[in-house]
């Protein structure tokens, strides 16, 4: 279980669904989807991320933990090239998804982001109807040929995000009228509507109350069956609850990465130990 999977085994674009129930909690088996090699990020002169190497497995949840400013969000944003929008940011090294380097000049960031979905810290539904929020992605990517295809995508996505039952009577009302937890699930529905291969979540529960948080955490666990999920969280309890693997970042470096149970019970590095036991952070 602990052996590092061979890089060369990483396939490309294969999305065959895994049999249900196979991936029980704690089971981290799966192919490697995302490979980061010597990833460094510079904001102008300042280096925010130093030489990160990591493998991220499919059909599992990987949590990035660490004190604020440690580079975990920066690295997350490298995975769908959201750093492109910051003029001063420069990324070196390589990030491969299914064996393809996403920083290759051939790679189109627009298409990449359709395949690597993202959910943000604060729920950010568009000021449109619930339907249009979910339909936005499929519409711009031309995923639905007919209106009924679109309806199907919207409903399926809402169902997957566990929101459909709550909103089916007001699906044409504004998405901004929902509660915070519902808004965040709407954003998750919006992200999965384009059928991404990887879903990035940047502290998705930090703006939510405990009940809404629990609901999202359940949802993440369900989504794990179909997606490769990376979640940044400041809460170690949350990392322990939802993730199969955990990576600990500190001062721009990846200190340690491994199975969640391992990291939390038996970390190899003293810094990890100190952070987990609350000596700093």
């Amino acid at each position, binding site marked *: 279980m602990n052996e590092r999977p061979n890089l060369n085994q990483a396939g490309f674009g294969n999305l065959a669904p895994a049999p249900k129930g196979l991936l029980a909690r704690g089971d981290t088996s799966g192919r490697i989807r995302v490979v980061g090699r010597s990833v460094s990020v510079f904001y102008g002169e300042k280096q925010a991320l130093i030489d990160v190497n990591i493998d991220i497995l499919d059909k599992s949840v990987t949590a990035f933990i660490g004190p604020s400013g440690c580079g975990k969000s920066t690295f997350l944003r490298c995975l*769908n090239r*959201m750093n492109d*929008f910051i*003029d001063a940011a420069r990324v070196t090294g390589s990030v491969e998804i299914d064996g393809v380097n996403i920083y290759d000049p051939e790679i189109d960031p*627009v*298409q*990449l*982001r*359709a*395949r690597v*979905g*993202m959910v*943000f810290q*604060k729920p*950010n*539904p*568009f*000021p*449109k109807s619930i339907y249009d929020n979910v339909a*936005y*992605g499929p519409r*711009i*990517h031309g995923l639905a040929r007919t209106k009924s295809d679109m309806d199907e995508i919207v409903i399926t996505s809402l169902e997957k995000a566990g929101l459909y039952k709550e909103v089916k009577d007001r699906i044409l009302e504004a998405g901004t009228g929902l509660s915070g937890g519902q808004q965040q699930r709407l*954003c998750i529905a*919006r*992200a999965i509507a*384009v059928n991404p291969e990887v879903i990035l979540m940047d502290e998705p529960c930090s703006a939510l109350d405990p009940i809404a948080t629990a609901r999202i955490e359940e949802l993440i666990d369900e989504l794990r069956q179909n997606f490769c999920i990376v979640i940044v969280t400041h809460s170690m309890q949350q990392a322990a609850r939802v993730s199969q693997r955990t990576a600990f970042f500190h001062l721009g470096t990846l200190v340690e990465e491994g199975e969640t149970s391992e990291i939390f019970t038996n970390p190899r590095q003293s810094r990890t130990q100190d952070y987990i036991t609350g000596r700093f952070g």
Partner: protein
Amino acid sequence: MFIYVLAAILALTLSGYVIGQRRSLKLAGGEARSLHSRPGYYGAYVAAWVGIPSLILVLIWLLFQGPVIDALLLASLPDEKTANLSSAQVSLLISEIKQVSRGNIFGQPDQAILDAGVRYQNWRLIASWSMLTAAISLCLAGLVINRARIAPAFRARQRVEGVMTGFMIACSIAAILTTVGIVLSLLIEALRFFSLVSPLDFLFGLRWEPQIAMRADQSLGSGAFGAIPVFLGTLEIALFAMLVAIPIGLFTAIYLTEYAHPKFRAVIKPVVEILAGIPTVVYGFFAILIVAPAFKNFMNSIGIDAAPNSAFVAGAVMGIMIIPFISSLSDDAITAVPRSLRDGSYALGATQAETIMQILLPAALPGIMGGVLLAVSRAIGETMIVVMAAGIIATLTLNPLEPVTTVTVQIVTLLIGDTEFDSPKTLAAFALGLVLFTVTLCLNVIALRIVQKYRERYD
């Protein structure tokens, strides 16, 4: 004389300051510390009581001196001179007397006028001297009374600060007074106009020929003050202005907020905003010098006849002036859309254009609409461009190649030159002004409301 009075008051005020300061120090036995306030405050206290009342007196005096002397003059003239005169003739008579009194004698004025001229000169002299006397005595009274009030325990600072607060409140109320002045003057003159011309005829009439009223022998034509063609022309020109300004301004804002490099934006944004700083009379001249001939030649070359002062040219040039309004208000509105919505859209794999057109613009729409409304109000109230580049004759047409006139053009043409406050021609300008003020005020209030609501939404 006015200058001397002012100088006297100023000198007395300064000496009041010095006297107050000295007096307080003397009472304190040279020990400033034993005074309640610093000596300067005692000086300022006395100075305020010396200067302010007499300044107010002088201002009120000046306001009433002219009309009072005019009335006295008129009453002093023999009856046969003043019988059956219209107010215009009366003012002419009075100005003749004033000319005579200055020694500018034209032709052979009769003896009554010459006498009146002498009387006028005397009265003015008397009035000036009595004003000076009154002002100085008021100053001295203030000086004596308030000098006596100075005592070490006297709370001079609080008094002076009270005066300052009063002055500041008065200044704040000046803004309200301006509005009240605008509303009252427009309403009073407009009501006088509506006593001559029915408001219904004015608001819904289809013929606007105010020139008819210029001839005294001609009675008012009933349809001569129907303002519909004027309103229509105003709206038409504003529409063309918007047709030019909205696309250019909006696309400029889109490019500068979403595509442009920050350095490019830092240079280009102020350059575009120069357009709003150019006086409108310059745009008017630009319209008649360059744009109108060019447009006419172009239309002729494709075989269409266009008037040199066509509605389109006036509107288009006004549109150039309005570009910065639209662009900077849209810029603000688009920038105010939170970063998280952009991120959300980009994270779904949207291109910049998709993000702008489908997320940012709809989200910024209220802000942009507010800006557009402000710009419309600006276009409706804009004067010099249309005075120079649009027509004067009110024609009921929507043809962009023909000249139309606007509310502001009519106001200026009706009031330029000599004005009499009892002819419907002059009063009509105030009625138009009232409509203009009401409409622009409503537009502004609505626009400011929308913009404010929009800001609150994303704050």
